[in-house]
C-alpha cells in the first residue's frame, strides 16, 4: 500500500468515525432546549432570523433574569436544511441531551413536523408548531404531545376570508366573487384546502387552486392564467421562501393589483417583499404577531443581548417579521416551562412535565403586559381539549418599505373549524388505533 492510499484511508476513517459519537456535556441544573433550524438550503433566509430571535430571547432571559426562576436555559443547534430526514437525525441527536432531556422541539416545517410526531409522542416530548404544522392536532385528546399553538392554518384561513369580507363591505358581498388560491405544491400548501372549500360553500364564492411546484421560481404561466383568463377578485397566496417574491413580481408584471393579494403569515416578511422591490408596495399578508421593535421585550433583547454583542443574528434583523416571530416562539415556549415549574418545582423539567405547561398556557392581556409583549403576542388560552388557543389574527400591509398593521385582532371562525378538526382527529385516531384521552377528567 503506498502513501496515497494510506492517506486516503486515514482521512476517510478519521472523518467518519470520530465525530459521529461526539456529544456535548451540559451541567446539571440547567434546562435543555433543542434548537432545530436551517441556515442552509432554499429557506435559509427565513430560518436564520426566525430561530435567531428564539435564541436571542433565551439569552435575554438568562442575562436579565438568570434563567427561568433560577433555572438557566441551555440550548444546542442542529441544522436540518428543511429536510425531514435530517430532522429525524437532529431529533434523535438532541432528545436525550441535558439533565432531563429535550424540553420540546420546534421543527420549523410541516413535513419536518410530521416526521417526528410519532417518535416524540412515544418519547413524551412536546412538538411545538406555532403557526404551522398539523392542523387537526389542535384536538389535544388525540395528539397529547403536539401543539399547533396560537392559531392554526384553518383558523387563519377563516380570518382571512373575514378580512376579505370586510374589504368587500360585508360577508354577504362575497357571493359570486372569485378567489384564486396560489399554493406551494406541498404538504404545507395543501393543508387548508378542506376549509376553503367549506367556506366557499358557506359564503357562495368560487375558488380555483393554482399549485406552484417547489421552489417556485417559475410562475409566469400561473400568473398569466390568473390575470388574463381567470380574473379573480382576490388572490390568496400560500407560498413559502423564494416563491413569494416571485409571485409578487409576476403579479406586478401582469398588472394584478397587489392590494388584492393576501398572503399567509409565511408569505409576509421582509424576505418576501424587499427582494420584490417596488412591486411589493400595497401587498397584504396575515400575521399572528406585531411588527417592529416597539415592545418592552424587544427592547430588553436589544439591551441585554444585541448591544452586549451576544446576538445570534445581525442587529439589523431585530424588529423584522421573522425575528419577532422567533421572539414570540421564545415567549410561548419559555412561558410553558414557567407554568410547568409552578406545578413541578423550580428545577429542570422533562418533556412530559413541560407538556402540562403547554396545556395550561393562559396569555391574558395582563400576563402579556407583564411579559412586555402587548401588541406583539395575541391573547390566547390552551387546554387539554384545545391545543391551539384560538388566538385572533392581524393583517399587515407593506407600505413605503415596512410592514404596517392595518387591522386590529380579527377573531377566527371556530364554529366552522372546530368540528372539522374533531372529525379529522377522529379519523386519525381510528386509523392509528388511538383511544382519545378524556379531557373532562384531566386537570
Amino acid at each position, binding site marked *: 500500500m503506498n502513501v496515497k492510499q494510506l492517506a486516503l484511508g486515514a482521512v476517510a476513517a478519521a472523518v467518519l468515525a470520530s465525530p459521529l459519537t461526539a456529544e456535548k456535556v451540559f451541567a446539571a441544573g440547567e434546562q435543555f432546549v433543542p434548537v432545530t433550524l436551517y441556515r442552509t438550503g432554499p429557506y435559509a433566509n427565513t430560518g436564520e432570523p426566525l430561530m435567531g430571535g428564539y435564541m436571542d430571547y433565551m439569552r435575554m432571559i438568562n442575562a436579565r433574569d438568570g434563567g427561568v426562576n433560577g433555572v438557566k436555559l441551555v440550548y444546542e443547534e442542529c441544522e436540518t436544511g428543511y429536510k425531514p430526514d435530517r430532522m429525524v437525525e437532529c431529533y434523535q441527536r438532541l432528545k436525550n441531551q441535558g439533565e432531563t432531556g429535550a424540553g420540546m422541539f420546534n421543527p420549523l416545517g410541516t413535513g419536518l413536523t410530521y416526521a417526528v410526531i410519532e417518535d416524540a409522542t412515544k418519547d413524551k416530548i412536546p412538538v411545538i408548531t406555532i403557526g404551522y404544522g398539523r392542523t387537526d392536532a389542535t384536538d389535544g385528546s388525540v395528539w397529547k404531545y403536539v401543539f399547533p399553538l396560537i392559531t392554526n392554518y384553518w383558523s387563519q384561513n377563516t380570518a382571512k376570508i373575514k378580512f376579505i369580507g370586510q374589504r368587500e363591505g360585508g360577508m354577504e358581498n362575497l357571493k359570486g366573487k372569485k378567489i384564486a388560491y396560489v399554493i406551494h405544491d406541498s404538504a404545507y400548501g*395543501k393543508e387548508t384546502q378542506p376549509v376553503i372549500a367549506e367556506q366557499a360553500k358557506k359564503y357562495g364564492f368560487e375558488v380555483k387552486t393554482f399549485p406552484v411546484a417547489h421552489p417556485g421560481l417559475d410562475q409566469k404561466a400561473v400568473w398569466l392564467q390568473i390575470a388574463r383568463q381567470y380574473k379573480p377578485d382576490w388572490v390568496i397566496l400560500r407560498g413559502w421562501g423564494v416563491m413569494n417574491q416571485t409571485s409578487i413580481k409576476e403579479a406586478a408584471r401582469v398588472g394584478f393589483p397587489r392590494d388584492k393579494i393576501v398572503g399567509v403569515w409565511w408569505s409576509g416578511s421582509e424576505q418576501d417583499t424587499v427582494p420584490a422591490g417596488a412591486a411589493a408596495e400595497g401587498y397584504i399578508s396575515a400575521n399572528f404577531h406585531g411588527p417592529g421593535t416597539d415592545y418592552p421585550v424587544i427592547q430588553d433583547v436589544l439591551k441585554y443581548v444585541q448591544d452586549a454583542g451576544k446576538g445570534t443574528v445581525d442587529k439589523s434583523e431585530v424588529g423584522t417579521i421573522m425575528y419577532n416571530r422567533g421572539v414570540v416562539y421564545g415567549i410561548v415556549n419559555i412561558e410553558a416551562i414557567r407554568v410547568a415549574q409552578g406545578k413541578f418545582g423550580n428545577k429542570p423539567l422533562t418533556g412530559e412535565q413541560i407538556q402540562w405547561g403547554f396545556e395550561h398556557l393562559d396569555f391574558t392581556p395582563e400576563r402579556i403586559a407583564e411579559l412586555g409583549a402587548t401588541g406583539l403576542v395575541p391573547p390566547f388560552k390552551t387546554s387539554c381539549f384545545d391545543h391551539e388557543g384560538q388566538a385572533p389574527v392581524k393583517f399587515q400591509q407593506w407600505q413605503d418599505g415596512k410592514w404596517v398593521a392595518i387591522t386590529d385582532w380579527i377573531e377566527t371562525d371556530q364554529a366552522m373549524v372546530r368540528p372539522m378538526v374533531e372529525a379529522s382527529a377522529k379519523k386519525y385516531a381510528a386509523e392509528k388505533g388511538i383511544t382519545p384521552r378524556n379531557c373532562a377528567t384531566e386537570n
Partner: protein
Amino acid sequence: MLYREAGQFKSSYRSDQAIFPIFQDRIGVIIILLFAFLVIPMISSEYMLRSIFIPFLIFSLAAIGLNILTGYAGQLSLGTAGFMAVGAFAAYNLVIRLEWMNFIVAFAVAGVVAAAVGIVFGLPSLRIKGFYLAVVTLAAQFFIEWLFTAVPWFTNYSSSGVISAPPLIAFGYEFESAQSRYVLTLAIVAVLALLAKNMVRTTTGRAWMAIRDMDIAAEIIGIRPLWTKLQAFAISSFYCGVAGALWAFVYLGTVEPQAFDINRSFEILFMIIIGGLGSILGSFLGAAFIVLLPIALNNAASLFTGSGLPADIVTNFELIIFGLLIIFFLIVEPHGLARLWQIGKEKLRLWPFPY
C-alpha cells in the same frame, strides 16, 4: 500473507462460480454479517441505529438498485427517487386497503408494482441511449412526483398530502424499537444484496454487462436487447421500490411525494458514481459516503458552535467540505471507492513481499 488464495484449487465448476470464490472473502462476509446482526444492535445507541444505520442501509439498497441498471446494464437513469416513491405509495395503499396483508408481503408487492412502472418507463430504452435515456427517466421522475401530489386517492384523501405510515406489525409482533427496526431493515437489505451479488454473476448479469459494453455485439451473440434491458429496469425498480417503502415506513414514518424529489435521484446517482459503477460493494461504500459524511461533518461542526465561531459559517462548512471531498475522491480515484478496496486487495495478496 493472510489474504492469499494460493492453494485454494477449484476442482469443480460449482466452486469456480461461487458467489465468493475466495475462502477469506467468505469468512469476511460471514463475520461482517454476524457483527451487523448481533453486535451492532447490542452496542449501538438508539441515535446510531435510528439515524445512522437505518438510513445508510436503505440508501445502500436503493444504490444497489440503480447500480444494477446503470452500473451493470449501462442504462443511465434519473428516475430512481420516482421508483422509490412508487414503492412507498404502493406499500401504503396495500397496507391501508388490504388490512389482512402482512407488511413484509406488502413491501414485496410494492417492489413488484415499482418494477411494472419501471418496465413502462424502460420501454424507450430500446431506441434511446445514453444521455437521451436519462432525459426520459427524468420525465418518469417528474411524472410520478406530480401524480402522487395531484391524485388524492393515492394519499387516501389526506388534507395535507402527507400520510403517516401505519404501525409495522407482523406475526403478532410490532416493530417499534430502534433495534427491531434495524434488524428488520438489515435482514431485507442483506437478503436482497446477496441476491444481487448472485444475480450479476449468472447469465442474467453477464447479459446486462454485454449490453452495457456493446449492445450490437451482444445482440449478435444472441442476447435479446429489449428483454435484457427491460429485465434490468424491472429488477432495478424492484430494489428501488422496496427501498422507498422502507424509507417511508421504517425510517421517516411518513409518506410524502416531496421526500422523493429529483435531488434524491441525484443523491443516489452520486452514490454509485462515488462508490463505484458496477459493484455491489461500491453501492454500500457510496451510500456511506453520501449519507454518513454530511451527518459526521454536521456533528463535528456542532462541537465548534460554542467556541466563538459564528454558527452560520460553521454550518456552511459542512457543504463546503463535503463538496471538496467529492472532488478529491473523484480526482484520486475516478473509478470509485470500490476500486480502492480492489487495489487494497491486490496489495494484500502480495504482502509482505511486494515486487
